[in-house]
């Protein structure tokens, strides 16, 4: 083992949390190194956010093609064929562009790159591939997460895939069972349904994507079913039997599901390999951090999926930024996650920020709800996307916005505006001072805000 170099900050892990932390620390003047054992960009760029969105876009395009004739666009033969090799190739091209972009950003900011497994030793140095030692004033451990497996008999079958595996598949399975109807399961289910699979989602809870507002989850279920996916809720899987050509998935008290492949999407667990010889306080496998992103070991920070607080890329971005600022300039900046949205990139998209109605009712005694349906939105109608709604929850006392829930066209984009409104503490009456362009999907947000004050023009007068 040889001593390689000294740094102000060494980052372990080159995913969203890690690469942002490294760049931010460098921008603040620190000497920085980053260690990555796989591909830069982490889960998100390589086998997460980006590849799934490329697949979902394909599903969306196929849907457009199938529905085009209702709009007068006739295609000689609508026998759409999917060339999965080509789909892969396109997706890989996008991933490559972005990951090499990350490497270029790191280099342009003067960050030293170490390729290999990084582990922290007893002296709080970072050891790369058990062979190089790099010394650091501060360490940022951003090891991220990996798919979790559960203890179902038969789960070891090679027909049971993680999202990583499914994203590498070269053939569209005829039937795909999705075990776990969370965000990842629902998104992957929909993309493969679009690509031609018959998809069955099996969810333990009583509804898909359980953290969503009840109404939104119900609407999503309705739409997804209408598109031909099967959803089985409140389902406890007892055994998976590999029958050679097919899988039989046995469910307690319900009919078995027969499928060619199964996706296991029941959650993700932190990758703790980087911990090495250091003992951190953890909680159910997640590294505990304070609001500065510092672990129980002074001088070591742990932003991103590794702390399990909210496993999202944009949360990892912000945590990485906060960790870097505190590592370089001393603990001063707290993480604030109020404005962090959650998005499901189904078609229609689903997005939320803040509290659900149930949560808001529990916390505030006087809330008001504004709502607008995309069925009355001009752009949605013109675009054959007139389904779903916007729901805004506000505190009646101060007009504070508590939560925004959207299912419908452009939800992922509109929610960023809701995040801004909440982060800036803009009240309901102030939002509607803005002039929203016409026709936009975003007008539905405007109308939902106006509805809270009973001032919406495009909602029929309510009977008192």
């Amino acid at each position, binding site marked *: 083992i040889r001593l390689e170099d000294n740094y102000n900050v060494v980052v372990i892990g080159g995913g969203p949390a890690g690469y942002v932390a490294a760049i931010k620390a460098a921008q603040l003047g620190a000497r920085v190194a980053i260690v990555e054992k796989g591909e830069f960009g982490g889960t998100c760029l390589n086998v997460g956010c980006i590849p799934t969105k490329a697949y979902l876009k394909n599903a969306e395009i196929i849907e457009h093609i199938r529905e085009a004739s209702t709009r007068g666009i006739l295609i000689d033969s609508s026998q759409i064929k999917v060339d999965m090799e080509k789909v892969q190739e396109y997706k890989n091209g996008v991933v490559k562009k972005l990951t090499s972009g990350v490497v270029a950003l790191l280099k342009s900011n003067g960050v030293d790159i170490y390729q290999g497994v990084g582990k922290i030793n007893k002296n709080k140095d970072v050891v790369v591939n058990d062979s190089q030692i790099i010394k650091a004033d501060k360490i940022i451990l951003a090891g991220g997460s990996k798919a979790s497996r559960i203890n179902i008999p038969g789960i070891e079958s090679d027909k049971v895939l993680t999202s990583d595996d499914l994203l590498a598949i070269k053939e569209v399975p005829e039937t795909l069972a999705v075990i776990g109807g969370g965000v990842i399961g629902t998104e992957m289910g929909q993309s493969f349904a679009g690509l031609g699979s018959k998809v069955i989602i099996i969810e333990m809870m009583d509804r898909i994507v359980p953290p969503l507002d009840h109404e939104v989850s119900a609407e999503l279920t309705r739409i997804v079913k209408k598109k031909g996916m099967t959803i089985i809720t409140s389902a406890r899987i007892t055994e998976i039997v590999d029958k050679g050509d097919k899988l039989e998935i046995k469910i307690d008290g319900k009919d078995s599901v027969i499928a060619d492949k199964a996706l296991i999407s029941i959650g993700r667990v932190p990758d703790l390999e980087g911990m090495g010889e250091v003992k951190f306080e953890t909680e159910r496998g997640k590294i505990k951090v304070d609001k500065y992103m510092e672990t129980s070991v002074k001088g070591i920070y742990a932003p991103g999926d590794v702390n399990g607080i909210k496993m999202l890329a944009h949360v990892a971005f912000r945590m990485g930024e906060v960790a870097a600022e505190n590592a370089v300039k001393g603990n001063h900046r707290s993480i604030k996650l109020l404005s962090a949205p959650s998005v499901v990139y189904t078609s229609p998209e689903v997005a939320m920020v803040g509290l659900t109605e149930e949560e808001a009712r529990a916390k505030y005694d006087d809330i008001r709800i504004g709502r607008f349906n995309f069925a009355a939105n001009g752009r949605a109608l013109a675009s054959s996307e007139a389904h779903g709604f916007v729901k805004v929850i506000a505190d009646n006392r101060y*007009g504070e916005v508590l939560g925004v829930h959207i299912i419908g066209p452009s939800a992922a984009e509109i929610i960023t505006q809701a995040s801004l409104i909440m982060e800036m503490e803009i*009240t309901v*009456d*102030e939002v509607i*001072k803005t002039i929203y362009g016409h026709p936009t999907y975003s007008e539905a947000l405007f109308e939902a805000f106006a509805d809270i004050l009973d001032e919406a023009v495009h909602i029929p007068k309510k009977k008192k």
Partner: protein
Amino acid sequence: TGRSDAGVRKVLATPVARAMAKEMGININEVPGSGPSGRVKKEDILNFKSPSAETSGRTD
């Protein structure tokens, strides 16, 4: 019972209004706000500033 911190209550103001007031040396608490819920806006700072600025700047 009256609130003891009433005097130091943070005034509602837009970020631009705050930046302007700070640079112009205006006590934002004295500026009447024209925005919703009395929020002080850029225009209010400019209106607040200009009368005194004009009188002090004029020599005739």
